[in-house]
Structures are given as structure tokens and as C-alpha cells.
């Protein structure tokens, strides 16, 4: 008798434990709150040149022609959706006794200028290293314009000053990096 009752009871008990094991409340919809904020840094432009490199023919009125670089990173859909802020940091080290200016232009598909900035470096009268930093921040309208950019032009212009010849001392060194703040949401 006991045997007969016991068998089904035990089985039922085991089944019960398995079927109605308790759960505390979980909420899988929390996945919709997912938000990650990676910050990516990347090298961008650089160059390193001695004073003599700036002599073109007999002229020292050096200015690079604005050559275009077609770039499709900024208007790619992922960047458009998730980039919330960008910064470009330039660092120049000048030991030439001549000031110069860097200009970066941002053009869209229709060749419209969407954004531009310039920065300049003083002449190094003693040929010591003069270090300068320049930070361009893209937020708000500037960020919208950045996301429309498909072409970049980088122009280096020597500002008026002491003439440069083959014996002119010093170098110009430029480094730059971009910092891209992303906000990726589900």
C-alpha cells in the first residue's frame, strides 16, 4: 500500500519541483536600455619636413595647393547614427624662423564648404622647438557639417617673414589625432 502511494507521490514531487520551481522577477526588456559609449582615438595627419623642403623653385612663398582627399568615413551610416562629438587635436613643433598657417577645409558631395578652421605657428627666432597645440571641437552644427563631409583639403602656407634658403635651420613637425565619442543605443 505504502509502496503504491509512495511511487507516484515521489514522482509527482520531483515533477513539481521541476515544473514550478520558483523564479524571481526578471525583465528582459532591460536590453532596450543598452547604451555604450566607446571613445575611439586615431592618428590622422602628420608630416615632418626640414626648412629646405619648403623651397619650390626660387620661391619661398610656399603654399601647398589645396589637394582634395575623398573621405567617406564621416558620412557612413554608423557614424551618422552614433557619433555624438568629435575632436581634432593638432600639435606642431616648429624650429624654423618663419611662421606658417595650416588650413583644413571640409566639403560635402556638392563641393560646398561645410566647415573650415585655421591655426598658425609663430616663427622660431632662435631655432628652438616651439610647440603649439590646436583643438577643434565638433558639436552641434559643426558635427552635422562633419557628417556631411566627403572631401578634405589640407593647406599649409608660409606666412611672410625671413626668407628661406638651403642653409635655413630648423624643421616643422606636425602630428594630429581625432577623438570620436560614440553613443551606441539599442
Amino acid at each position, binding site marked *: 500500500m505504502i*509502496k503504491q502511494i*509512495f*511511487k507516484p507521490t*515521489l*514522482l509527482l514531487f*520531483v*515533477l513539481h*519541483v*521541476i*515544473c*514550478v*520551481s*520558483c*523564479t*524571481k*522577477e*526578471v*525583465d*528582459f526588456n*532591460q*536590453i532596450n*536600455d*543598452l*547604451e*555604450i559609449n*566607446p*571613445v*575611439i*582615438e*586615431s*592618428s*590622422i*595627419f*602628420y*608630416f*615632418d*619636413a626640414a626648412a629646405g*623642403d619648403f623651397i619650390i623653385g626660387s620661391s619661398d612663398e610656399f603654399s*601647398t595647393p589645396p*589637394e*582634395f*582627399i*575623398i*573621405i567617406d568615413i564621416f558620412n557612413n551610416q554608423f557614424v551618422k547614427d552614433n557619433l555624438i562629438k568629435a575632436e581634432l*587635436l593638432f*600639435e606642431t613643433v616648429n624650429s624654423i624662423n618663419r611662421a606658417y598657417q595650416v588650413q583644413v577645409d571640409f566639403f560635402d558631395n556638392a563641393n560646398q564648404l561645410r566647415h573650415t578652421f585655421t591655426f598658425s605657428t609663430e616663427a622660431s627666432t632662435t631655432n628652438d622647438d616651439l610647440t603649439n597645440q590646436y583643438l577643434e571641437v565638433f558639436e552641434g552644427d559643426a558635427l552635422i557639417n562633419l557628417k556631411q563631409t566627403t572631401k578634405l583639403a*589640407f593647406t*599649409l602656407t608660409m606666412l611672410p617673414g625671413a626668407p628661406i634658403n638651403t642653409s635655413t635651420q630648423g624643421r616643422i613637425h606636425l*602630428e*594630429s*589625432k581625432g*577623438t*570620436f565619442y*560614440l553613443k551606441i543605443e539599442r
Partner: protein
Amino acid sequence: MKKFSYLLSLITCLAFGQNKQILYGFSEIPQSLMQNPGGEVTNDWYLGIPLLSHIHTNAGSSGISVYDLFAADGLDFNSKLENAIYRLKDNDFFAVNQQIEILSGGFAFGSGFEKNEYLSFGVYQEFDFISYFPKDYAILAYEGNQNNINRLFDASDVNISGELLSVWHVGYNKKVNDNFTFGIRGKVYSSIINANSTKNEGSFITRTGQNNFYNHIFNLDLELRTSGLSSLIEDENSDPKNDVKELKKRFLLGGNLGLGFDIGFTKKITDQWTFDASLLDVGFIRHSKDVENYKVEGVYEFEGVDPIFYESDQGQTADDYWSDIEEDFEELFKVDSTQSKYTTWRPAKLNASLNYAFGKKIDKACNCIQEESDYLNAVGMQLYAISRPKQPQLALTAYYYRRLFNGLSAKATYTIDSYSFKNVGLGVSANIGGMNFYIMADNFLEYQNIYNAQSVSLQLGFNYIFNKNED
């Protein structure tokens, strides 16, 4: 019905792990021969109830539970996610294993009076999946590289493998004498779908540069190998009926085939002490049909662009120069697909246990021990190991077995493994007439909140058994 659907969802959603510590050595259950082909056989013949003779699911996550991440506790989901990302290690894994026996049976034979040989056979479907936590990828995606200058991101952190297959097997078991039994089982595998990416190499690092702020160094050698997948994804006739037909064909030995074996033995050391061991799924599958592999390979360093003094000796414009760099990047991340055949090894499993049997039945009539009867209790220790892509996983189980009545026995286990240090399991096997039913599950301590369990395992089944020593 509700309970049934709950049970089904439990089976399908929460099945993890391959260790069948409760079933191992549980000789009343015919399927224990699948855990040790050299185990003791207690029946004369049996037939598994088709599709119901062995249903097994096991799922586990070694570092985190569902509850850790999704508890409705009002805490910010993103901070829980952040905790998880930093806490999990690259050796933590998520694993699922599921099996359904389609058919199985066995019968004793032999020339002597006591039939001492046993043949068992069957076919089952298995799904096996393991993914390690891709820690470095997660950190890179979560933080970006800004906070990780000079940190090497290891590309091998992606390690994932999954397979759906059918297994056709025949096993032979021989009781050589009262003290020694051995067995072997041959297996033919028919892989239905396989995908694996387990041999990735390389790294990504952002270092302080020579010419610019940073030097970004990519060194990638990544590969995903698949078989049986591309024809299902790419077929133009999207009629699922055709896919089902194709899957059936592959199940019936029309997939990518492989061979393997199980071996095992049981050795009685004394009347009460027994040692047994088995090695399972020593085998391979050769993937030659419907293979599609995807490979990303390349080394590239990027320090930035020189917009003025780029090497314009070939009359390059700045844009040509930039285009070259873009092409280099595209080349680096370009996915090459190949149809190279490949071989996978099945996850081999090792079981070994030492048993001590004690306590004979007391005859109420004479109030004395029935010397001729079998022992009613057993305790023992069992070691389990399984080969996995990164490193073997181990589990150690202590157990207590008790024969409650004729035809009803139970086993309780306490297991230490990658998931938990306190995994309590319970199993029962009941014979009612010729019908055998068994059910076993583990992680009972977590049943107050199943979502907090890092692993769940369940096996159940129905057999028709004809016992030789039926009272």
C-alpha cells in the same frame, strides 16, 4: 498544459552542459550504457519509447547568471552590464547541450546459461554549442581604444563552436566474470550543421607612434568555418519544406559523416568496492559537403596620412595616396571565402568513479540480513572531464545511491564544476510493470530562483524493460 509548456521551455531554453553525473553508473536505467559502454547491465532486453527514451538538456554559463543581468531590481542595466564585462574572464563560457534519443534498444545474448553479452543500439540527435566570452572585443567595443593605449587586444578571444548532428551507434558489452565487465560502442556521426571559429589569432594595439600620436597595428588571422549552413541560407527557393527535407536527409546519414567510439569497463575490486571508467565520443567529423569558410587575414600599421610630403614620385595626387591607404584597409578587413574541407573533433568525455556499496536488506521474518541480496546503498566519487576548445572542463561529484524498493531507486549528487561549487542533483528511476521511467535534474539549490542558476541540467525518459532478475 501550462506545466507541460513550462517543462518544454525549461528543456529548450535552459538546457546546459554535458555532464550526466546522475545518470552515470545508474545501472537500472538502460541509457546509463551511453555513459559507460562497459557498465553493468541489469536487464535482459529493453526498448526505448521512441522520441521519449532520453531527453537531455543542459545549459550553463560559467561566470554569470541570467539573474545577474536581467533581475528586475531597479538597478541600471548598463551598470550591471559593465560589471559583467569586467568580471567575466576570457575563459568564461556559455554552453548548451541537448540530446533526444529517437530510437534505442538492447538485448542480452550469449552461449552460456547466463547470457553475459549485451548488444545495444540506437540513434539520437544532439546539439552542442559553446562560446567563450570575447573579453577583449567586449572591452574594445565598450570603452574604445582611448583608455587602452598600449593595451594588446587579443583576437583569439573569439572562440565559438556549434553543431547539430545525428549519432547512430551500436554497442557491445561483455561481462567477462563476476568482477570484470567491459564494453565498446561504435558511432557514426552525421553532421547536419556545423559552425566553428576556434583557431583565431592576432591582435590589435594602439601604440604611441614614431611620426604621429599613435601607431595602430592590426595583425589579424580570423576564420569562421561552416558546413551545412550556406545552402540553407543562400538557397533561392525559400520554401521551408525543402529545407526540412534536406535536414531529414542529412539526419539519415546524408550529412557530413564522421566516426567515433566509446569504451569503458567496470572492475569489482572487492565485494563492496567497484571502480569504473569510460571514454566517450573519441571521434571526428570530416566536413566536405556544403562547406563555406570565411577568413580575414592581414597585417597593417597605420600612423596617419602625410598630406603634403607623401611620396609623389609617381605623380600621385593626395587623393590617390589616400585611396591607396583606404584600399589597404579594405584589403585588411576583406572577408575571403573558401570551400576548403575541414575536420572537427567531437568533444571527448572522460568519466571515472569509485563506488562503495553497503547495507543489505533486512528480512523482517527473521530480523536478519539477507546475505544473498544485493547491497541497497552506494556512495562514491566521480570525476568527469570534457575536451573543449580552450581547455578541458572538469567536474567532481560525490554521490549517494539508494535502492528504495524493488523497482524504485534514487541517486543524489553533489557536484563541483566550472559553474558552481554547490550543485545538488537528484534522480529517480521507477519501474512500474515493464515500464521504466527516470528523471534527473541538478542545481536544486538554485530552484528558488532558476534564473540565478548558472547551469541547469535535466534528463528524463521512458523505456520498456524486461529484467532478468525480476522478483
